[in-house]
């Protein structure tokens, strides 16, 4: 048997302990609940941001793949164009032989050579007049050709050209290797115009290329 006051005190201690126990567990449960809730929300948020970032990266990669393929696609067209342009130049040079035999657009090969000689001679006389006080009648020009082309040039032709350009134009003994065409130069060697077909092709390349592109590809698109 205990004292009355002591018994109540024991009961109160037990009650308070029970309350404290419940409070501790309640707070722990709440803490756990909050911890889990926050952690899950954090995980979900990180997942969302990660997936968004990965989606952006993947979409960029997709665009990169497509851009690379588009570039390859452009290369197909470019390749076809370049091959066709190259072929047109090669065929034109090959065709020169036929021009020598059959002429071109109603013009004989000697006539074509005469035109090139005259054009070169006029350029030289014009250049000579600009650069010196000597008149063109004092000038002497020589025509250099391949052995094959030399047979197309006659004395009469050169005499006629001489008359037209106003200075003496004569055939050089020197022979060059060329598909065709002429080199005309002053006898003193100070000015030379190279009208061989290879050289003209090089010189006229940018314009010729544009012409070829127009003929081969643009007509369809226009």
């Amino acid at each position, binding site marked *: 048997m205990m004292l009355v006051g002591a018994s109540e005190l024991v009961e109160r201690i037990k009650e308070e302990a*029970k309350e*404290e*126990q419940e409070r501790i567990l309640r707070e722990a449960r709440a803490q756990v609940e909050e*911890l889990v809730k926050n952690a899950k929300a954090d995980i979900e948020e990180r*997942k969302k941001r990660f997936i968004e970032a990965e989606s952006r990266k993947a979409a960029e990669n997709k665009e990169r793949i497509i851009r690379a393929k588009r570039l*390859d696609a452009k290369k197909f067209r470019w390749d076809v164009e370049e091959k066709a342009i190259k*072929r047109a130049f090669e065929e*034109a040079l090959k065709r020169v032989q036929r021009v020598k035999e059959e002429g*071109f*657009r109603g013009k004989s090969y000697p006539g074509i050579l005469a035109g090139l000689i005259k054009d070169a001679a006029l350029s030289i006389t014009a250049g000579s007049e600009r650069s010196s006080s000597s008149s063109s009648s004092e000038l002497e020009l020589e025509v250099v050709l391949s052995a094959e082309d030399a047979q197309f040039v006659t004395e009469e032709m050169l005499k006629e050209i001489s008359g037209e350009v106003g200075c003496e134009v004569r055939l050089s003994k020197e022979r060059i290797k060329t598909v065709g065409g002429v080199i005309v130069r002053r006898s003193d060697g100070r000015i030379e115009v190279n009208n061989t077909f290879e050289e003209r092709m090089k010189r006229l390349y940018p314009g010729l290329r544009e012409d070829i592109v127009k003929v081969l590809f643009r007509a369809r698109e226009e």
Partner: protein
Amino acid sequence: MNLRVMAVEALKEIKKAEEEARKLVEEAKEEAAGMVREAEDELKKLEAEASEDMERRAKEIADKYAKEGEDEGEAILREAKEEAEKLRAIAESRLENAVEAVLVRILGLNMQAGR
């Protein structure tokens, strides 16, 4: 029992109750700490699972977009090849005109016509 003995007994009971109360609170604290530890372990697992899930989904997304890119790219290439083939045929059919255009200029016929 005399009063002195009763008082000693009462004190013993109070002490015992206090000891039990202290143990109860101590156990509650341990249980609470255990609950937090368990939750933290569970969250670690969740974290690891989420990590695996993210890696898996990232790979799925990357594969899906890469396949789309490859498919679209292949379609572009197919179309370009067909287009290039048509272009090649057209260029071939117009080669003669292009050769003539080159010849007119390298033979100097354009300047002769101009004079």
